[in-house]
């Protein structure tokens, strides 16, 4: 009888011991866009692709062309950027970006890598040495010090430098390798990992080291964007 009770107890305890749930079990591959669909739209919740200049922001003249074009395989997406650092005795690190955004936060904390293909075709005035290409994840609802955007109201993001050439290359970028840019003076709560549950944009940017008043740019291409 004692043995039976003991066995019953052990069996019961055992049942509770094996009750473990993997919170990431449902996080399968997520194809953001392979640019092959007739609708030319990324997967929900992402909205349509766009091209934008930054530093200065909201400068549509920085974008001379924004279009779907030949990609790595089939169709891809391209932005042609004519960037100019504003002549004001300061270097603004002007740049351009291809991006798809969502008004909804996407939880990528269970994903490990961003996959994308990209290339850069320098314009007549190429960006100077020291310019960088970055994969970018934005997380505008991330908090710093418990406040969305921090006290400075920053639209937080995390970046990872990529080495682009004029030929198509495929990149597999660990999400753990993304870092918050140094110009964002307030750190995201939870550091870079604090951005991953709140991703609302993915893109590719050219950040130049154009000197004060200098111009430069080129065509940035992207294709086959996914998370695994």
């Amino acid at each position, binding site marked *: 009888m004692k043995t039976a009770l003991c066995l019953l107890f052990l069996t019961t305890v055992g049942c509770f011991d094996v009750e473990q749930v993997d919170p990431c079990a449902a996080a*399968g*591959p*997520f*194809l*953001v*866009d*392979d*640019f*092959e*669909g007739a*609708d*030319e*739209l*990324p*997967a*929900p*919740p992402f*909205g*349509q*692709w*766009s*091209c*934008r200049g930054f530093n200065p*922001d*909201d*400068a*549509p003249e920085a*974008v001379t062309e*924004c*279009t*779907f074009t030949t990609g790595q395989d089939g169709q891809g*997406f391209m*932005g042609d950027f004519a960037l100019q650092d504003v002549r004001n005795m300061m270097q603004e690190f002007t740049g351009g970006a291809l*991006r798809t*955004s*969502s*008004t*909804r*936060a*996407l*939880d990528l904390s269970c994903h490990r890598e961003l996959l994308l293909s990209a290339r850069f075709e320098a314009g007549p005035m190429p960006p100077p040495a020291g310019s960088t290409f970055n994969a970018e994840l934005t997380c*505008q*609802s991330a908090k710093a010090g418990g406040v969305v955007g921090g006290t400075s109201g920053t639209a937080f993001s995390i970046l990872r430098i990529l080495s682009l050439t004029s030929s198509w290359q495929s990149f597999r970028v660990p999400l753990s390798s993304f870092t918050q840019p140094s110009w964002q003076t307030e750190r995201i709560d939870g550091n870079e990992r604090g951005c991953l*549950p*709140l991703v*609302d944009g993915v893109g590719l940017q050219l950040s130049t080291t154009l000197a004060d008043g200098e111009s430069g740019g080129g065509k940035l291409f992207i294709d086959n964007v*996914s998370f695994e």
Partner: protein
Amino acid sequence: MSPSSNAVSRLGALLVAQACACSPSTDPASESYSRIDDMEGEGSRIPWQAPHTDSGAGTGRWQSFADVGCASLVPPPTSPDADRWTFTDVPKPYTTFSGARSTRAARLSTTEPLVDTWGAGMRFDLTSTIDTVEPSTEVPDDLPCPTAERDLSEWPAEAVDLRDYRGITFFGMADAAAGTTRVSVLLLDRNSDPRGGICDPTQASPTECFNSFAASVELGADFKRFQVDFSELGQDPQWGYRPTPNEPDLEHVYGVAFQVFTPGGVCPDGAVCPGGPPSLTFDIWIDDVYFVNR
């Protein structure tokens, strides 16, 4: 994105649910229905009366909604002081349930493209605690749009227990020449409607409202019947408040919406989008909306 994408498999459950609702339904004799609205009456209020209400709420009413271009929406959005809802004569009367002839339907259309917005829709609440809203045909060119948050908070209502029903059925059609023909049917339950006090109406909040359990249907050129079982409804798995278990709260439902989404959504401020900012046009008809009894 291509149809063979991994995203499709990831969203499989939702898409399967939507696919189930995409085909016009047959009319099995074994099912019984409860009429919500056949659109043959006058005014914007639905005939369906909730069997039990604590507050003595009256019947709900139809209205349209959008965030931009509301003077271009027909019928335009109702406000608490001006009921602008109207039903429209169908192009050709047709037979619906039990041999009934339908002569009118709920029609929502655009006279100008709605630019750079998520979409638009029409909905009915199941109850309303606002007794009277004066009918109005006045449509100012700058008619303010009801934002989702303000729109719903302006329409106090009592949630209704729909557990006696297993789904909703309706007739629908759309003019493909006018634009988008895909319509999402949304159940506005306590977990997704800000009036339920559970989710957060703040945009981009991790527990944001408005991620209603839904299924989408592709409307054709002629009226056909569609049936959506509540068990088929799915929530977008990637944003907003997601209840556990992840299913609609049928015990507390405020209303039903028929929404049209802009393909591609909006172009971000300061950005250039290929082909210019996305726009939305449509001409959709919804008729003879019934609950499917259990």
